[in-house]
C-alpha cells in the first residue's frame, strides 16, 4: 500500500522484508541481556576471589577441571554441528535432521555430565552454603545449565518441526541464536570459575 504525502510516496511497512525476523531479534535482545547477567556474576565472583585471603577456601573440594574440559569440548562440538545443520538446511531441509539431532545429543551429554559433577561435588561437601566458592559455583554454573536446558527445548522444538516438514529458516535461526549463546558463553565461565 502506497500513500502520498505531498511529493513523497511512502510504502507501508508491511511490504518491507524485515532485516531480522522478529523471533531472531527477540532472541538477540534476550541473549544481550543475559550476557550482562553473566557479566555481573563473573565480576562479582572475580572480586570475591581476589579479596579472599585463601582461594580456593580451605576444606573445600577442588573443581574437576579435566572432566569439565571434556564437557566443554562436547558443547563446542555441538555448536559446530548446529552450524553444519544450518548449512544442510539451506540446501535440503530434511538433511539437517541428523546434525541437529547430534548437536542436541551432545548438549544433553553436557547437561547430564554437569549434573553428575554436581552430585559428586555435593557428596564431597561443596554446597550452596558451604563457602563463597560453592555459592558462586552453583549460581553461575546452575544459571548456565538452566539456559542450556531451555535452549535444548527450543532445539528439540525445531527438530520436531523439521520432522513434520514445516520448519522455516527464521525458526531455525532463532533456535541457533539461543544455542550459540549457550555455547559461546560457556568457555568464558569455564575459564573464570574453574581455574
Amino acid at each position: 500500500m502506497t500513500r502520498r504525502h505531498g511529493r513523497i510516496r511512502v510504502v507501508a511497512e508491511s511490504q518491507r522484508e524485515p532485516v531480522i525476523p522478529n523471533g531472531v531479534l527477540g532472541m538477540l535482545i534476550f541473549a544481550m541481556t543475559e550476557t550482562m547477567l553473566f557479566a555481573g556474576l563473573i565480576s562479582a565472583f572475580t572480586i570475591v576471589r581476589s579479596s579472599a585471603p585463601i582461594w580456593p577456601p580451605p576444606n573445600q573440594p577442588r573443581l574437576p577441571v579435566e572432566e569439565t574440559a571434556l564437557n566443554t569440548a562436547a558443547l563446542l562440538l555441538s555448536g559446530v554441528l548446529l552450524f553444519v545443520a544450518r548449512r544442510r538446511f539451506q540446501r535440503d531441509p530434511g538433511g539437517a535432521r541428523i546434525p541437529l539431532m547430534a548437536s542436541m545429543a551432545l548438549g544433553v551429554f553436557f547437561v547430564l555430565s554437569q549434573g553428575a559433577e554436581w552430585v559428586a561435588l555435593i557428596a564431597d561437601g561443596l554446597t550452596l552454603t558451604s563457602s563463597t566458592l560453592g555459592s558462586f559455583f552453583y549460581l553461575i554454573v546452575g544459571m548456565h545449565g538452566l539456559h542450556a536446558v531451555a535452549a535444548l527445548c527450543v532445539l528439540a522444538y525445531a527438530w520436531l518441526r523439521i520432522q513434520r516438514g514445516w520448519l522455516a529458516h527464521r525458526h531455525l535461526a532463532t533456535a541457533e541464536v539461543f544455542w550459540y549463546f549457550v555455547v559461546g558463553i560457556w568457555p568464558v565461565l569455564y575459564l573464570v570459575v574453574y581455574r
Partner: protein
Amino acid sequence: MSFVPLLDRIAALALAALVAAPQVANACSVCSAGRDDEAQAAFLGTTAFLSVLPLAIIGGFVWWLRRRMRAMDADGVTSHRADAPASLAS
C-alpha cells in the same frame, strides 16, 4: 518533643558512634575489600569490563544490522515488489 529534634539527636548519636568506632564503617564489604593490589586490580578490571561490555554489545549489534541492511539493499531484498516504489521515493 517535636519530631525534627528527635531526628537531629539520632543523627548526632550516629555521628558520635562513627567517630568513636570508625571500624564500623568498614563493615561495608566494598570498603574493606580493595585493600591489597590484587583486589584493587579486580575492582578496576571488572569496572572497565562492565562499562565497556554493553557498549560493545550494542555497538556490535548496530554495526552488524547496518551491514546486513546494506547487503539486503544490494541484493534488492528490501526493494519490495518489482512494481513497488522505493520506501521513500520523491
